[in-house]
Structures are given as structure tokens and as C-alpha cells.
């Protein structure tokens, strides 16, 4: 297959690029190792966090409700994503598309209603 042969040569340049890239990084590390001083102490090993001393573990629990609100946001996000192109092309689409979009919004509204009834909108 010709096409494959062509793209293979393209990939060869990518491969060379990868090697050169990795190689140059390694080379720099190697160079700095040659010339830097080697003097580790405790304060130096602490992770840098805006000059504050880190307290506790960086893995801690977020409040679950953020997640639910994020999801609620997605509902309207998706709605807007669909509404924009629909609005732009509305002139060509006609009545049928209007009905479709109403159905779509109704479905989304139903989701909101469900979430509301289930108490997802309350921050307790």
C-alpha cells in the first residue's frame, strides 16, 4: 500500500523527533548533575506551596454536593450547546425543528424537576 508507506515515513520523522526530544531532556539533566552542588536538607525537601508550610495530606475529601451541582450545571450546559447551532440554522429548519427542540427542552426540564423533587437543589 502506497499510502501506508508515505505515512510510515511521516511517522519516522515523528519518531526521530521523540528521540531527540527525550534525549535533549536527559542530556540537560545530565549536564546539571555535573555542575550542581549536592546538599539536601529537610526544609529543602518540603513541597513548595506559595511559601506556606503544607498542613495535612493533599488528598482530602471535597463535599459531595459540589458534584451534584456540577451535574446540574451540565444539564443547562448541554442545553445551551444544542440551542446555539439550532438558533443559527433555525431559518432553514422550520416548524419540525421547533417541535423537536421543545421536546428536548421538556426532557431537560423534566430532569430539573426530578432533581428538585429529590431535594438536589437544597444545600443542607
Amino acid at each position, binding site marked *: *500500500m502506497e499510502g501506508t508507506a508515505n505515512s510510515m515515513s511521516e511517522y519516522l520523522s515523528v519518531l526521530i523527533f521523540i528521540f531527540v526530544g527525550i534525549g535533549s531532556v536527559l542530556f540537560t539533566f545530565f549536564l546539571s548533575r555535573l555542575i550542581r552542588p549536592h546538599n539536601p536538607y529537610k526544609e529543602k525537601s518540603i513541597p513548595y506551596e506559595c511559601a506556606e508550610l503544607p498542613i495535612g495530606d493533599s488528598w482530602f475529601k471535597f463535599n459531595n454536593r459540589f458534584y451534584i451541582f456540577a451535574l446540574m450545571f451540565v444539564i443547562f450546559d448541554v442545553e445551551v450547546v444544542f440551542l446555539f447551532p439550532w438558533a443559527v440554522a433555525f431559518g*432553514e*429548519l422550520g416548524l419540525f425543528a421547533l417541535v423537536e427542540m421543545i421536546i428536548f427542552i421538556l426532557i431537560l426540564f423534566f430532569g430539573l424537576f426530578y432533581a428538585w423533587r429529590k431535594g438536589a437543589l437544597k444545600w443542607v
Partner: protein
Amino acid sequence: MIDYTSAGIDFGLIAPEIALLVTAFVILLISSIRRLNAFPIYIAFIGLVVTLALSIQQWSNQESGFFGMISCDNFGIAFKILFSATSLLVLLLGYRYMIARGIDRPEYSALLLISTMGMMVMANTTDLVVMFLGLEIMSVPLYVMAGFARRSLRSNEAAIKYFMMGAFASAFLLMGIAFVYGASGTTELRRIVADISFISSRHGAYIYAGAALILVGFGFKVAAVPFHSWVPDVYEGAPTPVTAFFSVAPKAAGFAVMLRIFLFGFADLEILSDVFWVLSVLTMSVGNILALRQGNVKRLLAYSSIAHAGYIMVALAVGGEEAVSAAIFYLVAYTIFNLGGFAVVTLLETRSGCRSNFSELPGLAATHPYLSAILALFMLALGGFPPTVGFLGKFYLFAAAIKSGYIWLAVIGVMNSFLSVYYYLRVVKASYFETSDEPFTPVSYTPAIVAVLIITAVGTLGLGFFPQQLLEFSRSAIFAFL
């Protein structure tokens, strides 16, 4: 203005899907107004029966519509029938279990229905984007269902793992579709088929990379090695009826799509056959070998489901009408006896404290002769013993492989079946020949689960003796497809 009449806007084509969606919405609506646990199940039941009837009624209606996005052919309709029947059985078998575990919330039925709808969309389109849409409609409810036992850590773990890996796989799938679109300028399989030689000569690497990534995405859903690692943890952690659903329906949906994409869309890519050959052998071998040492029936069934995916993949490697109809035959048969096996496990787990370890099986045969006999029947079917339909399914698959010259593949498949018999019979051995000091807590039957057990057992044996109807079904399911 767009000409809608020639676009084929025919809601009859998606009547089953609409029925499912409406039912699901009704359930959610009612449950959000009033807190009633029992009757959403009945609504779901009615909805599924209606869906099943609508799907059957569509049979041999070969049409495509909605700008070519929906293809309602016999292949797709066959899967619609399979999916709605599967959901129906899962709904029946899970009812008592969910109550016993205190998780009989109405959302369960709604999620089941929506997921089923997603599968139907997957199986009834030749457009990659719509397939992806169906896949997500199917998957998102599945993630929730996996974590449906909210108080159980294992269930939560299952949900998170499934979700993470699923999202991971979806990303690859989407990228694959993008590659294919980049190479061919379309996501419509029929147009890709028409131009495949031209496309692959110009943009070979892209179409190949796209095919590979699509394979990854659906390989994850059917649990092909090496994309299988989530299966045991998720199957074990999820509520058992959900596991039962996982083990059959998404797998069937994944195969429906893979059969369409790889034996129809990319049928001319010769490399596929070799890849599927290797994947099939890997999948069945790894699944079986890992199942050998399991001490838990649910986990064992999880690995066995991996192995079965490997058997069905034989059809993808072989290709051709006979292999596809054998794959459909096998999927239906596997659904029946695997659901049966899970129905027994569910029934056992309805008793409090039972987690289906092997050590809990002794005494089953002595106290529940019928139940243990049925369990043994399903195990034999899974192992491919005659006269069950499991034997015929394997027979047709491997026969198709041999006829197309894939003799080694068939040989490896048969060897793997032998291997699998070992662990299936361990279940039988544990329930029949081992003794335990602890008394066996009796199970309580409900009409629903008895119905499931009878349907699956009769199907397993009956289709083993009289496969004619199912054979014709699976043969006519490929008419429009190839």
C-alpha cells in the same frame, strides 16, 4: 428548507425506544411525586412487555430513516428483541433481591429501561456517532446501577472503577471515530464501505488507527483481554441482578456494534481477522485460566463471561454469514443460560449474609434438589455440554470457523471449553458432593424468580433439543446486514 419527508422521519422505526423512554420517565415522574417502591416495577414490567411486542412486530421491516441515522433491519431488530427480553428477565429476577437488600428504589427500573434503550440505539444504526450516543446512553445508567447499593463499599468501589475505566474507554472510542472521520470525511458506515479502498490508500494509517481505537472502545464493553480487568471487581461488587444484566446485555450490545462495524464497515481491512484471532484466543484463555482458582461463584461467572466473549469473537475473526448467524445464536443462548445461572445465584443471595462463596454451596443439593439440578444444568450449558443449547452454540461457532479454514482457532476454542468444564463442574461438585457442618438456610422462592428459572431452564434444554426456531431467527437476522 430541509426536505423532511425524504429524510425518513418515521417514529415507527424507534417505537420500542420511545416506549422505553416514556416508561422510564413515567416511573421517575411518579417516584418524584410520591414515594412508592413497589409499583414502578409493575410499570417497568408493562413497559418492557410493550417494548418487546413492538420490537417483535418490527421483524422483517427493513428500513432506514432519520437522515440515515437509524437502520431498522433484522439484525438490529433481533437485538432489540434480545435486549428487551433480557431486561424483562433481569427485572423479574432482581425484584426480591433488591427488597432484601433495602435498595428497591424506583430509579433502578428507570435506569434499567434507559440503559436498554441505549443498547437498542447502538444496535440499530450504521452511523458511528449515533453508535457512540447509544453507547453513552447505555453506559451512564450502568455506572449508577453498579453503585446502586449505596451503603455497600464494594458496590461503590465497583461503580467508581467501572465509571473510570468506562470513561477511559469512551475517550479512546471517540478518538477512533474522529480518526475515521478524518480519513473518510464521514461517520456513516455505508459510505465508508463504498469508499474503503480509496480511503485506505490515501489515509491508511488514520483509518487503521481509527479502527484500532474503536476496537478498544467496544472491546472494553464486551470485556476483551486486555481491556477486561474491571470485570471481576465490578461484577463482584455490583448488586447481583445488576451483575446479571452486565454479563449479558452490554456484551450483546457491544458485539452487535462490533459485528456491524468490523464485518460490514471495515470488512475489507484484512488485518482485522488476524487481530481478532489473537484477541479471541487471548480473551478465552485468560478468562478461563483466571476462573480456575476462584472461590466465589459471582467472580467465577465474571471470568467465565470474559471467556465467552472470547468464543463469540471467533465469529469476528472468521467473518461471513455463517459466523455472524452463529454469533447471534450464541449470544441468545448465552443470555439464556447465563441469566439462569445468575438467577440461581441471586436467589441464594437473597438470604441474608450470603455472598456466593463456594463454601456456602454444600448442602444445596440435599435441601433443594430442583434448584441444585437447575444450577447444574446452567453450569453444564456454560461448559458446552450436550444436550443443552450451550453445546449447539459452540458447535455452530466452531463449525463456522472450521469451514472458513480457521482450524486452529476452533481447536483452541474447544481446548478452552474443556478447560472451562473444570471450574463449572466445581460448582456442581460443591453443591452435590461436599458437606458442610453448617445447616443450609432455605431459600424462599417468589413467583417472579421461579418464572425466570423456568424460562431459562426450559430455554436451555428446549433449544438444545429443538434449535430450529432459534437457528432460523439468527439466520434471518443477517439478511439485510451482509
